[in-house]
């Protein structure tokens, strides 16, 4: 009556071979057809709602036809949406393209991958009413960035790097407490078992991403102010190491803040203020840290490694710098790999040894400590060259 025109009925009748319909039959059939279609659609909507969906699919229409004892319509079972092509020459006419497919191709095509089996994953949507910032929950300030399906694990769709909108940074109470606890442990009780636990937590926790800028600032600040507190420096370097280990947080944007403090711990003139402070260990540890940073982020930041090596080389070759600085530089260069050693250390070995030798001998260098340092530097050089040969 209003939707199905009688011409359609005529066309459909002709397509099945009935050509002699009288014209007054057509409107009656048209209105009846429309009523039936509406009925089926209403049943299909009920089936859709009970399947807990909001999009109507061909399956729903088939179930509705089944409810009315009508044979289902075949041929619409594929998952892809139907592709309509515009008919040539007509503005409003569309048809479904039926592609001719070679039988041989279909038979010999490799089997598609079996779909993954259904699983159930549990997570906390809210704890006492507050939604925790874990990867399974939507990010708190969702910027207008379309994120594709997070079916697999966490993707970095929270705060993309290149969007420069100012994000109001609100730290939850738990994160604040966490940060305060960690900083307090680092400053005061860095040799306790609790600190070790804290380091493990830093290396594995997935929800601490909002705290990363705070941690980098804390490290930079403390290193610059407390070069004479050895244990604190070591604790800070361990903290940086743990943060780097964490697979869930992205530390790349903050590298430029971390690197200066790390390099300081490596090639500073004086780390700690007591003679008993084993700053050699600290320098070794920091050298490993630098090497791991370069290895991990070297290909992303192309000038990271050259800058690091330049700094180390300057420290190495400057005769006015103290021996511990040379030691740090050599250790750094050594951990960066045999290539670096071959290119940078070996050519300069000769002039450097000429500088170092007097320091090592008892007659020229009366100061016991300085002689000790010189021997250590010599040992480091030997190690560097040895690893290159091997």
């Amino acid at each position, binding site marked *: 009556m209003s939707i199905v025109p009688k011409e359609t009925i005529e066309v459909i009748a002709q397509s099945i071979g009935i050509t002699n319909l009288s014209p007054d039959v057509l409107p009656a059939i048209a209105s009846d057809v429309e009523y039936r279609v509406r009925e089926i659609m209403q049943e299909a909507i009920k089936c859709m709602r009970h399947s807990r969906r909001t999009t109507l699919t061909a399956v729903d229409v088939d179930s509705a036809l089944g409810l009315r004892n009508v044979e289902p319509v075949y041929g619409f079972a594929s998952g892809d949406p139907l592709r309509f092509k515009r008919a040539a020459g007509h503005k409003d006419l569309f048809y479904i393209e039926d592609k001719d497919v070679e039988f041989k191709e279909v038979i010999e095509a490799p089997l598609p991958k079996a779909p993954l089996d259904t699983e159930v*994953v*549990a997570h906390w949507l809210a704890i006492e009413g507050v939604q925790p910032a874990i990867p399974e929950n*939507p990010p708190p300030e969702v910027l207008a960035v379309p994120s594709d399906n997070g079916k697999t694990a966490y993707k970095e769709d929270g705060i993309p790097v290149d969007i420069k909108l100012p994000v109001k940074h609100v730290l939850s109470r738990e994160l604040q407490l966490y940060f305060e606890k960690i900083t307090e442990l680092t400053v005061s009780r860095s040799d306790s078992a609790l600190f070790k636990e804290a380091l493990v937590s830093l290396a594995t926790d997935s929800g601490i991403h909002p705290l990363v800028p705070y941690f980098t600032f804390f490290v930079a600040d403390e290193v610059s102010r407390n070069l004479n507190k050895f244990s604190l420096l070591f604790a800070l370097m361990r903290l940086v190491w743990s943060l780097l280990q964490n697979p869930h947080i992205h530390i790349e944007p903050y590298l430029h803040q971390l690197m200066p403090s790390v390099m300081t711990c490596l090639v500073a003139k004086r780390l700690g203020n007591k003679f008993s402070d084993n700053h050699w260990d600290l320098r070794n540890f920091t050298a490993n840290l630098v090497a791991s940073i370069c290895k991990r982020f070297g290909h992303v930041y192309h000038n990271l490694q050259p800058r690091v090596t330049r700094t180390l080389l300057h420290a190495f070759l400057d005769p006015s710098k103290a021996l511990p600085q040379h030691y740090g530089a050599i250790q750094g260069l050594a951990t960066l790999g045999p290539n670096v050693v071959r290119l940078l250390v070996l050519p300069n070995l000769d002039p450097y040894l000429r500088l170092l030798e007097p320091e090592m001998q008892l007659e020229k260098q009366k100061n016991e400590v300085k002689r000790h340092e010189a021997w250590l530097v010599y040992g480091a050089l030997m190690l560097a060259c040895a690893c290159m040969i091997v």
Partner: protein
Amino acid sequence: MMHSRDLQKLEGVLSPSHLEEMEFARSLRQSKVSVKICQYSYDLLIQYLHKTQSITMLGIVNERINFQVSPGQPSSISDDADVFTLVGSGHDAADLVNQKEIHWGLLEDSLEERLEKAGDRITDSDKADGEVKDGDLEENKKRSADGGKGGSTQKKLKKDKVVATTGKASRSESSTTSGAPRVKPELTLPIIPTEVEHSILEDLRNRVQLSSMTLPSISFYTFINTHNGLNCASISHDGSLVAGGFSDSSLKVWDMAKLGQQTGNTPSQGENELAPNENILNANAKGRSYTLFRGHSGPVYSTTFSPYGDFLLSSSSDSTIRLWSTKLNANLVCYKGHNYPVWDVQFSPVGHYFASASHDRTARIWSMDRIQPLRIMAGHLSDVDCVQWHANCNYVATGSSDRTVRLWDVQSGECVRIFIGHRSMILCLAMSPDGRYMASGDEDGKIMMWDLASGRCVSPLVGHSSCVWSLSFSCEGSLLASGSADSTVKIWDVTKSLKVSKTEENKNGKTNRLRSLKTLPTKSTPVYALQFSRRNLLFAAGALTKIA
């Protein structure tokens, strides 16, 4: 009703002279009534009148009615302020039904009551409590629907005073449930085994008190890789088992407690523990973490766990309901009675009995030990979409596609309340634990709170933008959680403080109105099922869907 006042006016017309005198009648005779109608409906109407040769009707229509025919789709009645929704028999019939007496109190001698009594004996004022409770039991039998509300107010006030004097924290929670009158059960109830009883009492003691200040913690079970196949989900009362009904006719049950233990056990394993762990691993040798139940021959539309977690019921489009045992992992019974798809099945709160809702416009009550239904509840004008038991197991509520919710008496099988107010198909129902209120959600996203005694809507809760799939009340009845297709869980504050007097109500009207407390979005996961455990921890389940 739409024009009841007008009709009352016309009742006064008894002679032709009255017609001349009455203003209203004269205006009716002179002008035409305008009715808005869409093109399709108008054509249908005219066609019918012509076909049935109703000359008189045609005459009246032509003379007296002015149709405002609008082309295109029928517009919603809600947009028109002049028109009320008329459903089926109309408001008159509904009001008649709603006059019937119902006893909406809680079951006497329930576990909660026993716990309270145990707590009471410790304190000094148990005598006063005993008096209050006895009074409740006697009065409710004679109480009519309206009287119930008034009587319980006084009892509640007395009860609250008693609570205040003792100051015991464990009894402040029962401010709504203990104040409710107690009724005798109409069905023979099954006996609870003692270990189960002890564990439930333990849960009741450890229950977290929720209110608008203390919001619940929500544990979410996400189904991944469902490929749009998950039709329904259900969570057991302690939250450890989650069942999913799929469109490929399979039913899968995950034991979340065992899964959680497995991941916890693997790091630290002593020599002695290897044997039991091996057994667990061998059981899942096929690599499946769930138990698969096959038996239905059509998509599974609804599942429900028994209150103590040992049985599972599922209903499907093959018009059967199947009973499965979670301990034996086998199909026990197949209940055949409906002829059309069974859209919903629910266990009663005490177990053993269950109700089903089907496309054949009936809801049936079954018992686990009979394959024939015990009662058939017919009366809806369209298929019954959801069913829910009252807390005292004497009444069953059903929601239907005819946009009404009906309350049925289990013993007689007759309809005792009709709730009209929804504007679309009703998808889920929830009963408050004190037996006083009922919440229903429809496919527009509107939730209506109904007062069972009067049959009226307390308040519509608007907030969801899409179908409300699931509702659940917290155990003390102060919060309502709703899960929707717009991928959020909303927590609503539904406490009605009866202490506030009328004058205070007018001043701070905001504090009394039911409002939304919190909206918790999920990551593109519409929420299919919600269940408050006995300890007031909220469990939710949904399937991760691709954003189209």
